[in-house]
């Protein structure tokens, strides 16, 4: 048996260790994988919406003659047609259009804050984060109004077979259609709203740190980037909620 050993050439491939194969920091990677798991949660919610819709009778009449009934799934345009300050005016999807614009705009100000962080421009980071917090809060306010309106209901309500009327929606009754429609509305938009709320809290925390110069001393604004990833994800989810809940 030979006692001499031959030195192996050190491996330098991407996956041989000693480097960062994904070229992203630990925190950023974990944020990505958290968002992936969150995408599954939201995906499951929206797919259950699809399942419920397919297992209910669709409305087959003309859209102009549409009436709320627990028999069939409602047309979203006929449910979400209210706008603050325009009581009784039929403005289909106008308010949700406004909410969508606000959220897309907040995504833009967020990415501008991240860009400013790359340049170590503390003032710009502060400015754009404040805009993002503002738009996020306005979106939450809009959602609160939308919930309040959904729960209160319309002036006419829904006429029941025994001649009585029900107004608005809760977990057991729903003037707009099958109770499941209201339940899914509360769960999906509520879960998304919780995410927006969490995002605003994270943004405020990162904003305070920015103002105190924590990131500047650290030498990088990666925390703003990570919060930004989360914030864009919330916007991304809204794009899907908007399509599957309000448009289709």
């Amino acid at each position, binding site marked *: 048996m030979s006692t001499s050993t031959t030195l192996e050439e050190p491996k330098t491939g*991407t996956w041989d260790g000693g480097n*960062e*194969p*994904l*070229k*992203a*920091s630990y925190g950023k*990677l974990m944020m*990505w994988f958290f968002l*992936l798991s969150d*995408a*599954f949660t939201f*995906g*499951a919610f929206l*797919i*259950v919406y*699809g*399942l*419920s*819709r*397919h*297992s*209910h*009778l669709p409305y087959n009449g003309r*859209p102009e003659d549409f009436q709320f009934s627990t028999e069939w799934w409602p047309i979203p*345009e006929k449910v979400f047609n209210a706008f603050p300050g325009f009581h009784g005016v039929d403005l*289909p*999807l106008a308010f949700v*259009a406004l909410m*969508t*614009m606000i959220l*897309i*705009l907040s*995504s*833009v100000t*967020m*990415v*501008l804050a991240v*860009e*400013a962080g*790359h*340049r*170590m*421009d503390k003032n710009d980071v502060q400015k754009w984060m404040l805009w993002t917090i503002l738009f996020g809060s306005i979106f939450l306010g809009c959602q609160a109004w939308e919930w309040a309106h959904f729960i209160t209901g319309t002036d006419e309500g829904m006429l029941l077979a025994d001649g009585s009327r029900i107004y608005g929606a809760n977990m057991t009754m729903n003037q707009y259609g099958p109770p499941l429609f209201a339940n899914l509305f509360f769960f999906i938009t509520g879960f998304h709203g919780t995410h927006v709320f969490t995002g605003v809290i994270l943004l405020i925390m990162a904003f305070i740190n920015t103002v105190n110069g924590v990131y*500047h001393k*650290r*030498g*990088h604004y*990666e925390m703003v980037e990570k919060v*930004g*990833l989360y914030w*864009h*994800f919330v*916007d*991304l989810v809204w*794009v*899907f909620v908007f*399509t599957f809940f309000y*448009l*289709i």
Partner: protein
Amino acid sequence: MAAHSDHSNDFHQAGEIPKAQTKVIWKTFFILVALTAVEFLFAFTMDAGTLRNAIFIILTIFKAFYIVAEFMHLKHETKALIWAILIPMALIIWLMVALISEGSYYFDSVRNYFN
């Protein structure tokens, strides 16, 4: 902070801040707004149906692409990270196909119970 020692843009010592590069950001924003506007156009001018739903879903996937690729910067990450995020999403497609057809089956069996 060895992991971040490669940050080539540490200007805080020099006190010099480079100009903002925001062209791509605003371009992405206008694409997203335009796609949303097209969605509303279809919502108000076209009758509901499978074709309209397909258009909505395609436009939504375009919007999702721009948000993830540009805003979340995934397009500019390494290939391994891009696939690590995208491949698991195939499970969502599976769940979608499985549960939507389950819903249709449930509807058919309840409606045609006595036939």
